[in-house]
C-alpha cells in the first residue's frame, strides 16, 4: 500500500481529490467551467464514467483507502439522469456508504456528492472548491488519524 502524500509541511499540503463525474451532466459541466474560464482549485482529478450509476461504492472507498484526501461524485440532478435513474441508485448507495464512512471514523467532510448539470459550470466548480475547503479543514488523510 503506497499512500504517497508528499513530504510537505501542512501549510503546503494540497489535498488530493478523486472526482467521479458522469459524462452527460457533470463532466460536461466541468467542460463548461473550462470554456467559461471559471477558475477553481486544481486539486481534483476527474474520472469520467458514463453515469453515476456506474460508480461502485468500492471505487470511492478504494480511493480513500489508497490515500485520496477526498472523493467527489458529481452527476445529473435527480430526475435528469441521461439514463433516467442511474443517479438515484448511486444516491441510495451513497447514503448508506456515507453512514458507514462516518461509522468507520472517517470524517464525512472528505466525501461529497453533488448534482451539477451540463449547464451548471459554476455549481460544479463551486462544489469542487467546497470539497477542497472541507478537506483542508480536516487535513491530510494519513495525518488526521493521529
Amino acid at each position, binding site marked *: 500500500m503506497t499512500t504517497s502524500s508528499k513530504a510537505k509541511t501542512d501549510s503546503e499540503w494540497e489535498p488530493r481529490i478523486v472526482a467521479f463525474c458522469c459524462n452527460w451532466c457533470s463532466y460536461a459541466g466541468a467542460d463548461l467551467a473550462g470554456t467559461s474560464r471559471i477558475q477553481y482549485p486544481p486539486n481534483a482529478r476527474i474520472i469520467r464514467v458514463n453515469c453515476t450509476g456506474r460508480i461502485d461504492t468500492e471505487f470511492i*472507498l478504494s480511493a480513500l483507502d489508497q490515500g485520496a484526501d477526498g472523493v467527489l461524485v458529481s452527476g445529473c440532478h435527480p430526475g435528469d439522469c441521461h439514463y433516467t435513474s442511474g443517479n438515484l441508485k448511486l444516491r441510495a448507495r*451513497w447514503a448508506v456508504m456515507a453512514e458507514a464512512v462516518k461509522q468507520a471514523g472517517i470524517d464525512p467532510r472528505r466525501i461529497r456528492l453533488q448534482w451539477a448539470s451540463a449547464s451548471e459550470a459554476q455549481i460544479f466548480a463551486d462544489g469542487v472548491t467546497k470539497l477542497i475547503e472541507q478537506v483542508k479543514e480536516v487535513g491530510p488523510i494519513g495525518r488526521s488519524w493521529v
Partner: protein
Amino acid sequence: MADPVPVAMGQGSSCWGCFQSLVDIHLRLAEVLPAIEIKYWQAVADFKLHHLESYEDKSIVVGFFEGMARTEEDIHLLKLMREKCQILIAFGSCSCFGGIPGLANFSDIEECYDVKFRNNKTVEGGEVPSENLPGIASVVKPNSDFVDIDIYLPGCPPTPDLIYTAVSALLSGQPIDLPPHTVCHYCDREKKDTPIEEVLRPYQGIADPDRCLLEQGYICVGSSTWGLCEGQCVNMGSTCRGCFGPPPPITQDHGAASISMLGSYAPMEPEKIVEEVKDPLGTFWRFDYPTSHLGRMRIKREEAKEK
C-alpha cells in the same frame, strides 16, 4: 497407500468453531485421518509450541490456521506456521478476513479494555491485567498482513462438506476447485425483480417463505457472498449475513459490493434509506471488516495512533 501427509493446525484468537466443523465431517474422518500425520494441533494432540518450532522449515505439507492474530502469541504462531508449512490455509472467515474478532476494530483498544476489563459488568473495579497475558495488538490486522496465505477457505465456520472437499483435494494433490457462485445461486426463493420500497429489520413483518427476502425488504447479502454454504440460511428462512465473505476473486470489498447492490435495488430517498438501514458497518462488513477498505483505513489510523 501413500505415506501420511504431515499437517499442522494452528489456532489464533477465535471461537475454535472452524476446527469443530472439521470434526463435523464425521465418518469421513475415517478416510482423512489415516492419510495425515498431525504434527501440531494443540486442541487434540499433545504438541507444544517448541515442537512446532523444532521442525525443519517447510517440513509440514499443509498448515491450517484458524482465527486471527490479535496477540503476540497468535502472531508468533502464525509466522511459525508459515515457516514450517509448505501450504498455509486461512481456515475460516476470521483467518481469511478478520471475521467476528475483527469487529473489535469498530472500537479502539482502550474501549475494548473498558468493555473487557475495566467496566466489565461481572467484576468490580476491573483492571487491565498486566501479567501473564500475551501482548495484545492495538488493532486487528488480517492474517494476510503478517504472512502470505496460499489458500483461503472462508466460512463461519467452513461447512464440513467444504472442508472435506478441500482436504480431499489437498491430499490427492489436486487444486481445490470451488464453485464461484454466491449464495443466491443456491437460494430457492423466487425473484420478481421489483425494487425495494422499504428496508425491514428481521423482526418486522412476516416474510413470504417463497420469495426473495431482499425483495421483501430484508437485507440479505446473499448476492454478494460466496455461496460455499450452499444457501443454508436463506433456504431455512434467514437472511444471509455474509459469513463467507465476497465471492472469488475475494479481493473485492464485500461490504461495498453489498451497498452497491442494495442501492441499486432500493433507489430510495437518501434520508429514508439511512433511517431504515441500521448500522451499515456492522451489517455489511460483519465478517470482513479488517480486509475491507474502511477497515484498512481504521487499521492505519490505529497504527498511526500508536506511533
